[in-house]
């Protein structure tokens, strides 16, 4: 015990000396924190607490919430189903154009969502070069449908999953996979029984991040899928509409629901992903 105590005492003293930031930094940091806290406080101060239940139980609200949950869940499932193989290929395979592929995957993270919506429309819209084929062959169109919402949300959300899982796949010790191979495990079994469990925390974190992103999706959705109540009007769209129409109480009530869900994701992830 004494040994540990003396071993840590010296560096700690030095740390105290160098880690005390100058006053100006503390002040600026406090301003920044206030900047993050103020909107939340505003929301809570103006919330129509007495009328909250009425606002939230309105049929239109319930419909928007349901649509949001269904679409974001579907987008997450699609992100995982396509994202795991994609992340694996990006992390482990050497092929020409891999850098381009990685850039393409990351693009929706930096692209303004509304631009994404326009681009989706030009590809999958009824006159789009793929949408036209879909219409001709199968007779269905994506824009202004619930499926269109899911496609838009997947487009903006999947990169979060792929980037998280790809990083995990790169950092996983591939010698565990070799050990599995020497025990008679084929590639699929190794991936399922060794690789995936080893990166499980990142799978969960990636899925949660992409789900949160899908839940909040606004720009691409409204551009690509429109704003049809019960069909494409998700929570963020409903909030915007309420706010625009001057029904601030309704907008706040809906916002509080999303704040609550976001907080739940943060708390759920704090051990896995947000650990400094």
């Amino acid at each position, binding site marked *: 015990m004494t040994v540990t105590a003396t071993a840590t005492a010296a560096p700690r003293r030095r740390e105290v000396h160098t880690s005390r930031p100058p006053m100006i930094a503390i002040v600026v940091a406090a301003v920044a924190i206030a900047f993050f806290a103020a909107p939340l406080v505003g929301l809570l101060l103006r919330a129509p607490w007495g009328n909250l239940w009425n606002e939230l139980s309105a049929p239109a609200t319930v419909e928007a919430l349901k649509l949001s949950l269904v679409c974001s869940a579907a987008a997450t499932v699609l992100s995982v189903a396509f994202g795991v193989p994609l992340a694996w290929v990006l992390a482990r395979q050497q092929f020409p154009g891999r850098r381009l592929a990685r850039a393409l995957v990351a693009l929706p993270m930096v692209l303004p969502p509304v631009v994404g919506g326009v681009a989706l429309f030009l590809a999958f819209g009824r006159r789009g070069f793929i949408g036209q084929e879909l219409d001709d062959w199968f007779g269905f169109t994506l824009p202004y449908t619930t499926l269109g919402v899911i496609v838009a949300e997947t487009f903006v959300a999947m990169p979060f999953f792929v980037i998280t899982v790809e990083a995990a796949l790169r950092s996983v*010790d591939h*010698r*565990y996979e*070799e*050990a*599995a*191979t*020497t*025990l*008679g*495990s*084929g590639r699929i*079994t190794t991936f399922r*029984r*060794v690789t995936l*469990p*080893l990166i*499980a925390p990142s799978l969960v974190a990636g899925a949660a991040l992409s789900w949160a992103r899908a839940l909040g999706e606004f720009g691409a959705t409204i551009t690509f899928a429109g704003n049809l109540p019960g069909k494409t009007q998700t929570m963020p769209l409903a909030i915007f509409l309420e706010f625009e129409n001057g029904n601030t109480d309704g907008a706040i009530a809906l916002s509080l629901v999303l704040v609550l869900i976001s907080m739940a994701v943060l708390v759920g992830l704090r051990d896995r992903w947000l650990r400094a």
Partner: protein
Amino acid sequence: MLDAVIDVRLGRLHLDAVTIEAAAGTTIAIIGPNGAGKTTALRVLAGLVALERGHVNLDGTVLDEPGVRAWLEPETRPIGFVFQDLLLFPHLSVLENVAFGPRCRGARRPDARRRAAGWLERLGIDGLAGERPGALSGGQAQRVALARALATDPRLLLLDEPLSALDAGTRPSVRRDLARHLDIFAGVAVVVTHDPVEAMALADHIVVLEDGRVTQVGDAAELRERPRSAYVAEFVGVNLYRGTADGDGLVLANGARLIGGDGTVHGDALAVVHPRAVALHRTRPDGTPRNVWAGTVRHVDPEGDRARVHVDAAVPVTAEVTASSLAQLGLGEGTPVWASVKATEVAVFEA
């Protein structure tokens, strides 16, 4: 029966026609300096690295022979591999780790678990079945890794520095256990090590690998008597004795005594004396050395400006002397001679 000629290039390393032959039931040690290609040779046998030329045959089956385009995927080879860092799956319990191999090779889950439990019992670690690898001590983890490798009933067992992850305190007992299991193992075992004591304790034959080439093959006595390289002479060709340690040193099977060691080892033990620590005299030395034996010179091997002199005595010993002192002493075959070793030059290890 393992018959391999390994020829492969990996970066700067070139394994140049490295030949490894071993009969079933025997253990081969591959020993050599760092970067000599020992681990790569094991990985070739396992199929984790493919040959460029040569072949790997096991019990008449071709595992890898690029010349005839023969290749068996690693997961279908009848091998067990104990990795240097053990690589127990951290997300599986000890039992599930050991059952992993049988499961992959087609056993049903209950059968695989039963087999795994049997191996844990045989290695004396059945009490750990439910533990996660992270909770194990070094010696326990090593036994689990061995159980996992043996649970698929391999015909070729590959061990990469199997004891290097252990601290000095637990190494002897695990080494003893390992030697016992290798003794009863029916297939071929190949152990990679850089520790001559480990090699001699575990293996029947030693393959010395230096810079991608085999420089010598033989048992411990052959390596000591005729070291073919400076590395062998320095690190492998040492005088090694087996016997029983008491507080003062080692008693050999013939009753002869070797005084030395730090007195902490008791029971079955090994003693190591470097040939350069052995002094030779024509008359009985009167100084202070604690170990003095009278004998005759059996053989002299000159090696550059030094020579190895093999002395038959109650404690047979190889001495390394300079060419000039060899001439001064007038040593040749049959010359009567006195050999002496200071007690401080005798290292005693638990066997």
